[in-house]
């Protein structure tokens, strides 16, 4: 191996350490008996049982998961429909519609979140779980549409034409030909949507009612009061879930299906 290639590999390893070390430290500390993160390390699962007994954390966790499931269902259905339309039809204004998907991704969430707060408050939706779901779906939609459209772009339209020429109706073609082909894209899109909602902090922060918050919002409030190992424990669980979900999404969108 040339010296440059070796140097490159060392660089890569250093970056991986930089990316993972704090997460691993946090996970390790959640099993440390000392409440002040004192070393030497002494194993204890105390913080996990404390966490499980903390009603606020458990309620917020259940709420977060339920919201994420609702968001996944809505965003996946609505987003897949839009992707099929954007792929199947040529029409005026299509470029504009595709461009409109970028503001929700590109504008800082601080701006989107506060704007949603102002608007929902004005029209009477107010703050609370419905507002959070409406906001999350809007953030998740572009991800679903982009993922499903990417999968569709490898779809052979002549398959549909062949099915239709043999007498299949539009609905049958959709159900038997198109949907099975784009299924991996839909699964990836759904996983993205789940992650966008489950990990979302900024928009939830502005839209949730005090005392009625999602898990990330609860954690933020708790951190600002001073942190406890209980937060370590729940944070470790969250990061494990969100990494697992994204790992699956990556497999489905990139490595799955057409290999």
């Amino acid at each position, binding site marked *: 191996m040339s010296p440059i290639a070796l140097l490159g590999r060392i660089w890569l390893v250093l970056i991986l350490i930089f990316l993972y070390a704090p997460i691993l430290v946090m996970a390790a500390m959640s099993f440390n008996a000392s409440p002040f993160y004192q070393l030497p390390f002494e194993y204890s699962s105390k913080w996990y049982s404390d966490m499980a007994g903390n009603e606020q954390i458990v309620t917020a966790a259940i709420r977060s998961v339920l919201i994420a499931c609702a968001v996944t269902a809505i965003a996946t259905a609505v987003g897949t429909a839009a992707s099929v339309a954007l792929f199947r039809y040529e029409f005026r204004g299509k470029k504009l*519609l595709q461009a409109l998907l970028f503001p929700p991704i590109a504008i800082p969430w601080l701006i989107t979140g506060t704007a949603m707060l102002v608007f929902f408050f004005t029209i009477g939706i107010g703050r609370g779980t419905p507002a959070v779901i409406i906001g999350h779906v809007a953030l998740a939609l572009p991800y679903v549409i982009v993922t499903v459209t990417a999968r569709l772009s490898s779809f052979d339209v002549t398959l549909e034409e062949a099915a239709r020429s043999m007498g299949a109706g539009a609905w049958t073609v959709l159900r038997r030909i198109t949907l099975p082909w784009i299924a991996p894209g839909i699964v990836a899109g759904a996983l993205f949507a789940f992650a966008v909602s489950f990990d979302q902090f900024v928009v939830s922060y502005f839209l949730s009612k005090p005392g009625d918050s999602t898990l990330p919002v609860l954690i933020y409030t708790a951190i600002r009061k001073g942190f406890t190992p209980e937060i370590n424990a729940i944070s470790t669980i969250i990061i494990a879930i969100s990494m697992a979900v994204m790992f699956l999404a990556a497999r489905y969108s990139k490595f799955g299906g057409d290999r």
Partner: protein
Amino acid sequence: MAEVIHAQDRRRLLTLLGPAYLWLTLAVFLPLSAMLFFSFLSDMPGDAPDWGVTLGNYAQFLENPTYATLLWKSLKLGVTVTLFCIVIGYPCALVLAKSIKGRAREALFLMVILPFWSNSLVRIFSWAIVLRGNGVLERTLNWILPVDIRLNLMFTTEAVVIGLVHSYLPYVILTSYLALQAIDDDLIDAARSMGASKLTILNRLLLPLSLPGLLAGAVLVFVPVVGSFMEPRILGGRMGTYYGTVIEDQFVAVYNWPLGAALSFILLAVVLVILGAASPVLRRART
């Protein structure tokens, strides 16, 4: 490919597209318009019966130099974080795309991207545990080195920069990697066979061809960093007052929504100018 639209297809098109775009209108575009309207109000309509239309909120931005100073501070933070992400991330993308091959490359790429997709709040929190006084980092350094080191990194600007670089570094790696991977290896072989050095190949071939990807990554880092508030709050402590935290305060602590809306819109204008200036590059990066 797709056929030209028929009258009967129009209804199907509307059924398929309608829900998604109605949703985006209700949850993104109308709120942004509502906030623009709010930014010109003197009071919250619900609170004060004598609310009126005014330019006062924007005038406050001009009259009180604190806001402009903080916006400038946030922009500088954006530049600093973006530069670090480029300097650290581009070589990493280069190694991944051109030096490592096969399954190892796919696995390593996924490992680099994975934390980026995970919960950003929790990752910032994990840095708080590492950086805090007498925390894990100081103890580790003191254990390795004989001298007593007091880093006191927590609640400093450095801590905010470290946390933000950690949050957004994978963006630059992702976009640069995609651009670098698209460069045909035959081009590099051709250059090498004609006697080009590694440095020449990098400067004359790889860097220019992957520049759109690198710049796209830079914009995608810069924009959210300028609007960040959670990271400075947790890692910056009293040093962590930025433009984003002031906007946050208007909505959750001071309850001056019209002023918050005006400040948000000024930020949005800055962001749009930057996105607009970068859009030719971004468009090239996507194709």
